[in-house]
């Protein structure tokens, strides 16, 4: 192999290694899925009369400790309660992904899993290509504080930390959009 050709091969291999390293930055559901920078000109409305949301203190799949402030980072937060064994949750994931794509960094989304088996959960997250941070709640403490009777359930918390809406069994994209559009004034 001539020197120029070996240099080219080395460059390609190095680039591939770099790409693979970048892709494997952390497990699905971990801290690297927390919301990014809040858009500078994003603005939000509070929901009048809504009660304060219950606490969202917990640990993500990668054991990162989180709370409502870290998860929402100053913007409306969608909380999706799910479990790997829940067929309807898998069906709801496409709705969550659609909303995430449409609203970008103007909103935050967190999933709260009731799974006891983390291996089954991570397998589910890979299968469903879940791109949101995921709290592991095996004792269902957060589930109970939000009165989840069975998954899926979707909750919407406004940027002020008020519980704006609960949708037992989840909601379709239009229903979630309607609520979000009332509180996301400018997405930035």
């Amino acid at each position, binding site marked *: 192999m001539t020197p120029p050709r070996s240099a080219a091969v080395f460059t390609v291999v190095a680039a591939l290694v770099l790409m693979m390293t970048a892709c494997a930055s952390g497990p699905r559901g971990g801290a690297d899925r927390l919301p990014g920078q809040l858009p500078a000109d994003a603005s939000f409305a509070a929901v009048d009369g809504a009660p304060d949301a219950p606490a969202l203190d917990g640990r993500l799949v990668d054991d990162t400790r989180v709370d409502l402030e870290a998860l929402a980072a100053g913007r409306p937060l969608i909380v999706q309660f799910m*479990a790997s*064994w*829940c*067929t*309807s949750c898998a069906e709801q994931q496409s709705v969550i992904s659609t909303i995430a794509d449409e609203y970008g960094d103007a909103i935050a989304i967190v999933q709260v899993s*009731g799974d006891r088996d983390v291996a089954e959960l991570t397998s589910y997250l890979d299968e469903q290509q879940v791109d949101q941070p995921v709290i592991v709640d095996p004792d*269902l403490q957060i589930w*109970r504080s939000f009165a*989840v*009777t*069975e*998954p899926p359930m979707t909750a919407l918390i406004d940027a002020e930390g008020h519980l704006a809406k609960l949708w*037992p*069994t989840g909601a379709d994209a239009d229903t979630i959009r309607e609520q979000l559009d009332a509180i996301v004034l400018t997405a930035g």
Partner: protein
Amino acid sequence: MAFRPIPRATLCAALALSAAALAGCASPGDAAGGEVQLVVRDGSLRELGAVCSGARPYLGFHKGAELALIDADGRESYHAVLGDGEAVKVDDIDYGTAPRIPTFCRFVLDAATLESGTYSVSIDGDVVAEHVVDGPATMIFVPALASVDPSSEGAE
């Protein structure tokens, strides 16, 4: 073709055989094969026919959970892995146009051949109810709501 009356002795024998067969189906200790259903009486509000799992406090009843029936001697007589449940009606009340009404979550499971008797119902290793088998098809209710004594049930 001329009608020929069935001899009384033949008729009696046929009736006796039929009665014996019917009685035999429900006699204690006999094996009975048939469909198994698990009904979780959680009363959760759902759309009729929706895919479901047990609602709180029955969250353990879901797809992938393992159901077992344990006989009086502690032997596992039946084992099944739950699939998706289906929301079924609780009552005959007309709820009008309400999209979600009180339902139970019913799981249809593999057929079983079970001897008549009382079984412990276990889900993922936890005993959650007792179940009495007294016929070919068996419908397991959780919770049982009341203990059933097969010797007194239906005696009146």
